[in-house]
């Protein structure tokens, strides 16, 4: 059993708890256990692109420092902090790289962290769990663990921005990724390509300008539906919320019937690997995926 120092991020502890619980369950099954960092803080979600604002970089550096402390308690582990959320992944990865390149900045931040007995020595790597699945576990091993193939699911992979942008943070080829497709196919589902795979969902604009998000979601789901898919798989809880919530809103507003349930990649794995249903917390979804699963006889 390999143990990974796991950074959940705020959303996976609240609205997106099913994403986390399913991921932890399958991580154990795949002998690559995600172990939560004790006392972690929010990474800030979005990376600051300013050159001069160190304040906004303290949070990610503190997480890396705490993760580094954490791996001392783990067995059979690597100097890796693993995330499930693509926004956390991107923020942590970028800052980690910046700190490696800008030792002055690291020193300034460490000066602040020292008083809390937390300093960072540039000795961690940040990984998205998808990278662990692809590069360390391997899809063939995943295929072996499948007890309930997802036959009938026609899934379009929606990567969103932060899994593929920027170069410092991407986990796959930015214009031609395949990790999500490979994953869903190894679970027995069919993958449906859509050119909207990284067309931004509108992200944090959901707070102050919902229309931006609505427009994007219309474009994305419209294209995906036209290609015959019956579900979306995502790896970012904010994409998941925006796609789920705005489809539901459109459904209520326009009476539109054809909608795409949203799955987190870890939920699909948990279903295929026969984990208990409850851990997915499908009741938290705005569009309940259980209807589709029932129709396809995947849910008993």
């Amino acid at each position, binding site marked *: 059993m390999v143990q990974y120092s796991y950074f959940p*991020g*705020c*959303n996976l502890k*609240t*609205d*997106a708890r099913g994403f986390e619980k399913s991921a932890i369950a399958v991580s154990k099954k795949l002998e690559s256990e995600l172990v939560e960092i004790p006392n972690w803080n*929010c990474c*800030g*979600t*979005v990376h*600051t*692109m*300013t*050159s*001069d*604002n160190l304040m*906004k970089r303290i949070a990610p550096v503190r997480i890396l420092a705490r993760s580094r402390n954490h791996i001392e308690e783990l067995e059979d582990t690597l100097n890796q902090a693993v995330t499930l*959320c693509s*926004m956390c992944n991107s923020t942590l990865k970028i800052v980690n790289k910046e700190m490696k390149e800008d030792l002055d900045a690291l020193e300034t931040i460490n000066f602040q962290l020292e008083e809390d007995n937390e300093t960072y020595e540039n000795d961690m790597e940040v990984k998205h769990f998808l990278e662990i699945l692809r590069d360390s576990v391997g899809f063939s091993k995943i295929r072996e663990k499948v007890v309930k193939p997802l036959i009938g699911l026609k899934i379009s992979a929606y990567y969103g*921005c*932060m899994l593929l*942008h*920027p*170069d410092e943070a991407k986990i796959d080829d*930015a214009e031609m990724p395949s990790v999500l497709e490979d994953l869903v196919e190894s679970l027995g589902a069919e993958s449906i390509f859509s050119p909207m795979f*990284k*067309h*931004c969902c*509108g*992200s*944090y*604009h*959901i*707070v*102050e300008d919902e229309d*931006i998000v609505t*427009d*994007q979601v219309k474009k994305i789901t419209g294209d995906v539906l036209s290609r015959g898919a019956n579900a979306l798989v995502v790896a970012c*809880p*904010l994409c998941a*919320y925006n796609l789920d919530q705005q489809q539901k809103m459109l459904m209520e507003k326009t009476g539109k019937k054809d909608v795409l349930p949203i799955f987190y990649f870890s939920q699909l794995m948990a279903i295929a690997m026969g984990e208990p249903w409850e851990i997915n917390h499908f009741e938290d979804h705005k569009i309940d995926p259980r209807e589709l699963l029932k129709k396809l006889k995947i849910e008993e």
Partner: protein
Amino acid sequence: MSYEYIKFGPEERDFIAKIEEISGQNIYSCYQCGKCSAGCAFSSRMDKTVNQLIHFIQMGQKDRVLEANTHWVCSSCLTCSIRCPREIDVAALMEAVREYILREEPEKVKISELSKEVIEKLPNIALVGNFRKMTG
């Protein structure tokens, strides 16, 4: 707009320098190919396209830059940055304009005026992201 009225003095130079300093980018690397605007998922909502905004920055036209909605509509997806043939971090320029404004007026989004019912429904990840980009 006619060229004789465009001023290019110390004030304009200061503005350009500040944007370059915050973003860490060389604004004159841009040769206005327009690839950023072409690939932007939000171009249709912007009153000036991304490359137009960059052009105004190059000219030191502070007022025109600040009154645009381009940088506020931008959602930091970074598509422009990875596609720029001149390897400019275009999104960082958008961020620099936002920061330039937020350092003077820290609340583009007035948090206390948001509806409590709406906030309660939103996931924390959206609030954290939004407040980081839209408040100073």
